[in-house]
């Protein structure tokens, strides 16, 4: 799966949690979930569960802690899909 495909799926997944629509419109590789999208930090664990379901991967605690931005999340997803 290409990076662009992953970002496209990720965009759909995070949409329900977004509190900053402007940040969501400009979502790109450098977007930070909390600072740019104003996602409630408690919801990050929900996004990770949604990622697991969508990409059929399992994400360990260490990887979870890294998943604060689009870029880091794409890297984790790629790593787990190729594992």
């Amino acid at each position: 799966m290409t990076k662009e495909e992953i970002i496209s799926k990720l965009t759909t997944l995070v949409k329900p949690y977004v509190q900053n629509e402007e940040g969501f419109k400009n979502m790109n590789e450098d977007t930070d979930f909390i600072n740019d999208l104003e996602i409630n930090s408690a919801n990050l664990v929900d996004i990770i569960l949604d990622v697991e379901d969508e990409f059929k991967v399992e994400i360990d605690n260490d990887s979870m802690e890294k998943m604060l931005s689009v870029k880091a999340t794409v890297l984790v997803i790629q790593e787990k899909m190729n594992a």
Partner: protein
Amino acid sequence: MNSAEVKNRVVITGLGVVAPNGVGLPAFTNAIKTGISGITYHQDLKDKGFSCCIGGIPTVSEEKKLEYLTPLQLRGFNSTSILYGCMAGIDAWKDAGFSVDENSSPDYDSGLIFGTGTSGIEKFRDAIYKIDAQQVRRLGSTSVVQTMASGISAYLGGILGFGNQVTTNSSACTTGTEALLLGFERIKAGKAKRMLVGSSSDSSLYTWGGFDAMRVMSYKHNETPEKGSRPMSATAAGFVPGSGAGAMVLESLESALKRKATIYAEVLGGNINSGGQRNGGTLTAPNSEAVQKCITNALLDADVTPAAIDVINGHLTATSKDSLEIENWTKALGRKGSDFPYINSLKSMIGHCLAASGAVECVAAVLQIKEQFVFPNINCEDVHSEITALIATDKIPTKMIKKDITILAKASFGFGDVNGCVIFKKYEESLTGLDR
């Protein structure tokens, strides 16, 4: 008199309700005036082997939920007690003339006390199944806030932006009436200007199952659900489970007058006590002496004589304890026969809403004062002989009657031998707050 001794008068300026026979104030008011039952048959109770297969569940569409909670709040949401509580609470706050704005500053003069028995029991069940399947991490972020007892106050406090006390009380079937009295005390003491008070209870067979096992729910009316809840009737055969939420905005008279708010009624006073599970009281049965004491102390607190009571809204669940409750009222008030006030039980229409019962019934009590009527006791065409021996049958109206009501007493009693009684008074504008 120093400021600490000043006792604020407390009035009710907003109401909200989610009941089995009516969701929202207009539908509920119409239902209780016309005697509409909200009790229906539920196949899932039958399928799970319940003896009692009828119950009261409010009708709430998916579209309706979105009027109160955001799509994000509804993600992974499985708690009817929180849903009903939010609906009733938001409705009451708006009914009092306030707006709901997620960008408002915290209102440090407004708080809430919103009770429940258990919170989100279906969500709790989901969580237990996941944990037992070694999927604890799959609980996500939604489990804690929906299953903590104070989930309902946490949701409402955030939606409304309250900055005063935000908490949840729990005292079985006394919960809603207790919440009202706790909020009343807080305003009277000058610690808040407004308190949103109420209670809610889940629509769930997991809430109801234990009562079915105790054989205190009626199993004789599964084919005639609307006839099932029969407080004070000779053919009463146990209570019918219900669910929902009721909410009231309590406000200092000063604040209400300043805002030119609509005043539904005044809370004159009340009492909360316990029978200590002594003198006949147990975990599940009342100590009659304490019940009577609760009523007489409520009258003393309100500075009202027993003779002044026009209407009683009882606890009256349709179990064998109904006649004992009537006896306790006759003794506490020193009134019986045709001298007894009118009395009714909302449970005839909506069943026993358990932790929500006190709040839903207080809303109905306040509506009776505001609109000057006594709602009918449906299913009470055959009053129990132990009750007719104590009070005149015409004091238990089976059709709505119009009546000038000045003082109404409402009581709730709960497991744990706990009691609550509140005295409401019709609000008259000529009383300016300076005369008491």
